[in-house]
C-alpha cells in the first residue's frame, strides 16, 4: 500500500465514525472483515456512501431503501449483514 492509498483508507476509516451507533457497529464489522486493501472502485463507492447523511445511510444499510445509483449496490450488499450482534 503506498502513502496515497494509506491516506485514502485512513480517511475512509475516519468517515466511518458516524453519529449513530447503528452505523458505527456496521462499519466496524466491515473494517474488521475486510482485507487490507480496498480496490479503487470499492473505495470510490464507499466514499459515496459515507458522504450520505447518517439516517439516509442507515435506511440503505438496514434494507429499508435501495441505493438510487445501481453502481453502489455491490458495496451496499457488502455492508449489509444479517442480525447477530
Amino acid at each position: 500500500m503506498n502513502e496515497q492509498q494509506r491516506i485514502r483508507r485512513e480517511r475512509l476509516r475516519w468517515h466511518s465514525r458516524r453519529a449513530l451507533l447503528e452505523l458505527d457497529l456496521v462499519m466496524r464489522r466491515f473494517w474488521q472483515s475486510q482485507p487490507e486493501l480496498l480496490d479503487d472502485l470499492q473505495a470510490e463507492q464507499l466514499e459515496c456512501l459515507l458522504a450520505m447523511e447518517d439516517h439516509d445511510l442507515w435506511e440503505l444499510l438496514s434494507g429499508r431503501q435501495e441505493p438510487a445509483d445501481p453502481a453502489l449496490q455491490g458495496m451496499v450488499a457488502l455492508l449489509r449483514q444479517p442480525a447477530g450482534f
Partner: protein
Amino acid sequence: MKVTVRKFDAVIVGAGGAGLRAAIQLSEAGLKTAVLSKVFPTRSHTVAAQGGVAASLGNSEEDHWHWHMYDTVKGSDWLGDQDAIEFMCKKANEVVIELEHYGMPFDRLDNGRIYQRPFGGHMSNFGEKPVRRSCAAADRTGHAMLHAMYQRNVKANTQFFVEWLALDLIRDAEGDVLGVTAMEMETGDLYAFHAKATIFATGGAGRIYYSSTNAFINTGDGAGMAARAGIPLEDMEFWQFHPTGVAGAGVLITEGVRGEGGILRNSAGERFMERYAPNAKDLASRDVVSRAMVTEINEGRGCGPNKDFVLLDITHLPPETIMKRLPGIHEIALQFAGVDALREPIPVVPTCHYQMGGIPTNFKGQVVVPGKRSQNEIVPGFYAAGECACASVHGANRLGTNSLLDLLVFGKSAGESAVDEMKQSPKPHKELPADAFDRTLERLHRLNTQKDGASVHETQLDMQRTMQKHAGVFRFADLLKQGVQKIIEVQKDVERTEIKDKSKVFNTARVEALELDNLIEVAVATMVSAEARKESRGAHVRDDAPDTPERPDGRDDVNWLKHSLWFKDANRLEYKSVTLRPLTVETIALKKRAY
C-alpha cells in the same frame, strides 16, 4: 514541533447541538468565531436524539414551566441546582420557538401548532399525571435540529474547522483560559486557537462503558482536557442507563416507543411496571424503569435462554402508528435483534446512555470552580454547555427530552455570557504564556517515542470492561473498591500506549490514542466518585444503601445532598452544596421520589 497560532474572539470545541447553538449567539453578535469538530457538524451525536425536546408549550393540554421544573427537580433526585433548573424550564418555550424560526420542521397538530407527546417523568400539576410536553420531528429531532442550526451558522459566517481534534486547554498563571491547542487531522499539523472565550461543547463520554448507546465519537474530549488543566469534574458518578438498549448491541430504542404505548413485559408476559410505578407505569423515570428491569432479571423473570433481558412489546399498536410515529424502530429490531417488532416483542436491557456530570458551570454557562471566596468562582474565559457540562440541571438523573433542551438553553446561555463579557468590557487578547503548548507537546512526544507500550484497543477494552463490571447500573461496595484499584491500573497502561504507525497525515491510530487519554480521565473520575458516595440517589444505586424511613430508597440527604468534585491531581474529591434556592419561586422541598 511547530505550533501555528490563530486568533479568534471565540473558539468552540464541538459542533453538536450545544456548540452550534452557542456559535449562533457569538457569530450573530459579529464576533469572530471558530468551531472545531472531529466530524462534520451534522454527523455529531446529537443526530441520534430521537425523542424530542421538552417545552411546556401546552399545545395539546394545559402545561406550565413550574410543573416542568418540579418534574426535573424530582427526576434529579434533588441533586439538580434549582436556580439552573428554573432557568432552563422557563427558557424552554423561547428556545423551541427560536428553533422553529430557524426552520426546524417540528411535527404539527391539525391546527398548525407543534405536536407534543408524553415522555417518561414529565407530568402535569406537580406530578399528577403524564403530560404531552415533548416536541419532535418524527424520530429525527436531533438531526433536524443540527441541520437548522448549521444552516443558521453558515449564514452568520461561523468558521468551521472540520476534522480537527482539540488537544489541550491553554491556561495562564492566573488560571484564565486563553484557548486550546488542536491538531488538523488532514495534515497532522498543530495549531493553537487563541481566543477571548473558549466554549466546550464536546458531548458525553459514554464510551467508557462496554455496553453503551453512544456513538464511537463520544470520548469525553472536553472533560479530559478540563481535568488535565486542573478543572474538577462534577457528579461523575451519575450515569444514566437507558432502560431499552437492544440486548447484545446497545442500540437504543427510544423512550418515545413507550410514549406511544409500548409495554415492558417479563418472561410471564406480565406488564411488570404496574407493580413498580402504579401511576406512571412504563413511563416512569429512566432509572426507576432500569431498576425494575434489572430486578425482574435478577429475580429470574428475565427472558431468553439465559433469562438476561426483558421484552418491549409494541405488537398491540396499529402498524401504521409504528411506521408513522416510530419509523426507525422496526429496522433496528430487525437488524440488531432479529425480530419483526410488528409481530414479536424486542429484547432489551438497561444500557449506558447519558453523562449527568461534567465540567461544572453556573446557569450562565460559565465554568465555576471552588476558590478562596466561594465554591463557585468563575474561570475567566471558559464556558461549557451540553452533555460535557454540569449546570447542574439533571442532578442524579436526567428526564428524557431534557438533554436537547439543556443543549439549546445552555448553548445559548454560554454564547450570550461570552458575548456580554466581550461587549461590556472589551479587552485585547491576553498574552499566551511561554508554556502554553507544553502539555500538548509532551503528550505527543511521549506517544511518538513510546517503546514496548500498551495497545490502544486492548487498553480501551480493559477500561470499558472494568467500568461495566465495577460501576454499572447497580453498584456494590466491594466491586467499587476493587474498581478504583483496577481503573488506576488501566490508567497506567493509558500512560504508556504505543502506536505502530507514526505517520503524520491522517493518522487515525494517533487520534484514537489521544481520545483514550480523555476517556480514562472520565472513567477514573466516575469510579472514584462512585466509590466515595455511600448512598443511593437517582442513577447511582448502591446495594449497601438500604431503603429505610429515614433514608428512602437509600438516599441520605443528611450526609450526601452535595455535589462531588473530582480533581485529577491525586484523585482528590471535594464536595459543594446543592443550590436549593430557585431564582424566583419557592424551593421544591425534599421528599421521597416516587412515581
